[in-house]
């Protein structure tokens, strides 16, 4: 008989996004009927974004990978269905063979990123750790420079609860477009606005958020540091700084003053494209309309001076005493609520002959490192939570480097460009078919994810795959793999908690999370104790740590003039609301929204170049050339172009351009993706 009642299960969106929404799944007759937001989530409060509400079409997409499939030859499109035991045998045999060939596991490579941010999705890293020393993509293409900058200035990564914004007099949304990329934040921003706060958006693009703000300051891409410097100089010259705060809570103010004084205001204004009136306005808001809540997006640090940009704004907030008080602070991203034990990563080989750890392959320069590391070379690559071939620079070099591999395995929901270039693709479960735990890098809530429906066709969770592989390897040789094959999903979850973490969540058992997400008991206002884990214990306007690795000790600097004459336009890769990079691209209704890739161009530039609206144009730089449809937009300025990076086309123009920071926190420098200089021509 058909069941007439729903069972309701808790889920959490595991995508790389600010909100990490808790969701409710309504299941009837083993079929997920609908997905809603979870009203018990204190930040998202029962709302989802357009992507979240569309999960049904993702989970039940007819094109989901259904079975383990093998392709021979690689890239031929000649796929054969294989059983799980065949797949596991092929993979295990390769691992064993390579171990005997090279007498180590360094020829095994893992490239994983943020396709799924769940704790149990660390299973493959855990599995690799359990073999011994292996090769791994290390680094981060997204927040690396900013995370280092925050670290140098504050010593750790904190954010305030979003409710804190209700205490703000001034809100500066600096390089962030929450209307498109963090919709839940808008309710808080609107509420603050209603209570009288003024919202200022600083962005190279007149975004949807800018349109809803009280003030919009359109800066030149990458010139955030120059703008901050100009404002700091004005603050200094007009005594708008908070001397008491500076004395008590910062280190290096005297040095910073000395450093700023001789710098040219005119040059700073010219670099960021502002008038002195705009600078005066910002300086007075920062100095006189406090508290000032500043939210820094992830785009402004994707520059060669990206870390410096973030440090410059940090300094600006510190100079004006806008740190640690209710309604103030520089919000970027946090890690203080990620209190899991990560036991899943720590099943290391007991055999002392086996080395532990990883041989790093630079995440952002992966192709190069694959070719460089030859002792021994990587011969086996496991790709998971990652669409390597659409989300990397140097694609041609990468494809060439991948040719020398003997086995590429990709775990996926769909046949991505990366899976197309694999030997084996394994079908992965979605968050409606597995257990997991997810924390946010923005808010402070922890959510659990439980299965609602059976795995689609033969898909399996990464954890299950890791267990199967480990079991198979240990059948071959006892203790070959230390990753446990006998622990259940729930046992793995249990191991992720400590008593301290439970106390912080005010629960006694992780199962209580099934009743609703819990807030981690961290301060509601970041740095409210005004204690900093920096060497000086204060906010470091002068950072000896930065200086020691050949960075400027100051966050503030004018730009080097590096605009190329051949490629005079900056192409920004801003996110749009319906996709997260290559995720959600295959939903039919979304395809109707943006039928083809396009580039946004100011009509004045188009006129200068003789480009008609909606015509195809050439976009080129020293790395390559693409042909793309031009759309007029007055939201960009004359020298700025925008492409939403929801298609692989853009990769032809991208290479690895190291940002200034990133190594300290994430293990590798960020990629200065927004320093993409191009030229255009009509076809």
């Amino acid at each position, binding site marked *: 008989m058909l069941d007439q009642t729903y069972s309701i299960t808790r889920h959490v969106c595991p995508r790389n996004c600010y909100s990490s929404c808790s969701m409710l799944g309504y299941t009837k*007759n083993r*079929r997920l009927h609908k997905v809603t937001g979870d009203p018990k989530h204190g930040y998202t409060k029962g709302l989802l974004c357009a992507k979240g509400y569309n999960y049904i079409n993702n989970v039940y997409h*007819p*094109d989901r990978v259904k079975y383990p499939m093998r392709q021979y030859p690689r890239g031929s499109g000649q*796929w054969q*269905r294989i059983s799980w035991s065949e797949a596991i045998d092929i993979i295990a045999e390769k691992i064993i063979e390579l171990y005997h060939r090279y007498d180590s596991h360094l020829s095994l490579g893992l490239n994983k990123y943020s396709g799924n941010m769940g704790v149990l999705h660390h299973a493959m890293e855990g599995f690799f750790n359990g073999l011994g020393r292996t090769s791994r993509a290390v680094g981060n293409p997204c927040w690396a420079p900013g995370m280092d900058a925050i670290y140098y200035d504050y010593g750790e990564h904190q954010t305030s609860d979003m409710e804190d914004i209700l205490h703000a007099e001034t809100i500066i949304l600096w390089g962030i477009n929450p209307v498109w990329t963090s919709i839940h934040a808008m309710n808080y921003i609107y509420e603050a606005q209603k209570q009288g706060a003024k919202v200022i958006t600083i962005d190279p693009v007149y975004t949807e958020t800018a349109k809803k703000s009280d003030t919009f300051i359109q800066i030149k891409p990458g010139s955030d540091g120059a703008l901050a410097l100009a404002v700091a100089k004005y603050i200094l010259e007009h005594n708008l700084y908070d001397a008491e705060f500076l004395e008590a809570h910062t280190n290096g103010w005297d040095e910073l003053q000395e450093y700023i004084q001789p710098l040219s205001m005119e040059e700073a204004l010219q670099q960021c494209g502002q008038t002195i009136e705009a600078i005066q306005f910002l300086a007075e808001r920062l100095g006189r309309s406090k508290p000032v809540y500043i939210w820094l997006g992830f785009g402004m640090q994707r520059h060669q001076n990206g870390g410096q940009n973030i440090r410059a704004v940090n300094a600006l907030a510190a100079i004006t005493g806008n740190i640690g008080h209710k309604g103030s602070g520089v919000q970027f991203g946090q890690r203080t609520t990620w209190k899991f034990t990560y036991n899943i990563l720590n099943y290391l080989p007991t055999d002392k002959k086996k080395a532990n750890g990883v041989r790093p392959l630079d995440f952002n320069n992966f192709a190069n490192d694959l070719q460089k590391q030859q002792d021994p070379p990587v011969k086996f690559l496991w790709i998971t939570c990652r669409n390597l071939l659409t989300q990397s620079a140097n694609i041609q070099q990468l494809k060439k480097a991948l040719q020398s591999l003997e086995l590429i395995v990709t775990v996926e929901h769909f*046949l991505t460009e990366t*899976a197309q270039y694999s030997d084996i693709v394994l079908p992965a479960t979605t968050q409606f078919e597995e257990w997991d735990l997810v924390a946010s890098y923005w808010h402070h809530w922890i959510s659990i994810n439980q299965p609602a429906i*059976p795995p689609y066709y033969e898909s399996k969770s990464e954890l299950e795959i890791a267990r199967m592989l480990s079991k198979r390897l240990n059948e071959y040789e006892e203790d070959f793999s230390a990753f446990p094959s006998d622990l259940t999903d729930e046992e793995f979850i249990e191991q992720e908690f400590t008593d301290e973490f439970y106390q912080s969540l005010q629960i006694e058992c992780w199962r209580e999370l099934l009743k609703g997400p819990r807030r981690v008991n961290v301060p509601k206002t970041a740095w409210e104790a005004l204690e900093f884990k920096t060497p000086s214990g204060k906010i470091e306007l002068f950072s000896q740590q930065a200086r020691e690795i050949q960075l400027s000790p100051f966050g503030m600097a004018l730009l080097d003039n590096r605009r190329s004459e051949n490629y005079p336009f900056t192409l920004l890769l801003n996110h749009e609301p319906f996709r997260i990079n290559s995720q959600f691209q295959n939903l039919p209704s979304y395809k109707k929204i943006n039928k083809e890739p396009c580039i946004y161009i100011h009509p004045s530039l188009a006129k200068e170049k003789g480009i008609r609206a909606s015509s195809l144009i050439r976009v080129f730089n020293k790395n390559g050339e693409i042909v793309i449809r031009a759309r007029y937009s007055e939201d960009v300025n004359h020298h700025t172009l925008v492409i939403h990076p929801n298609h692989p086309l853009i990769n032809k123009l991208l290479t690895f351009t190291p940002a200034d920071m990133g190594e300290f926190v994430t293990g590798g420098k960020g990629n200065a993706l927004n320093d993409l200089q191009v030229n255009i021509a009509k076809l």
Partner: protein
Amino acid sequence: MIYTEINNINQEERLFMYQLFLHYYRGDLLKLPSAEWGKLLEMLERQHSLQSNDWGRKAIQQLQNLTDQALETFEFDFNRLFVGPNKLLASPFESSYQNFEGTVMQAETLKVRRFYYYEGLQVANEGGLPDDHIQFELEFILHLLGSEDKNKVLQLFLEKHLLKWVDQHWARIEEHSQNQITLAFGYLLKGFILLEKSLIEGEGPLC
């Protein structure tokens, strides 16, 4: 189409054809040794009703001229069309054609499930795979085909489900097939469905 010409399909032939399609869509024929294809062809050639329309004749013609290469690439093409992991070029799910978004396991799938339930049947691993995969619809038809008292249910199911989408399915096969066998089975399906439709229109006994 002239009714009298094609309405000479007998129950035995129908049973054979539905069974054949079930094996085909279940993937059983992927493992068929090369030598067995000749035998299958002989069996098909004995299906007189099939020979009564162009599609059946074209299908048999394709299979008569099977090359080794076609046998070698059959599995790859079958997967391209019906299994994946690529975007399915001729989706085997009814909902791909009937649902607004092409999403499976929606109201369209549930309607099919209700038919199965009505007959006391349930797809194994229900929930893990869509009930409206052509393989299950064929299996259900085969279940009904044997008994006369299921005539009404069968007619309803054919009219409301299989016959509603199978033409679109077949059109995609014709458009995307790159292999003699998948094309031949596309033709076979088209020819056979024509016979089924005329049978319904003629209101002859379905079971």
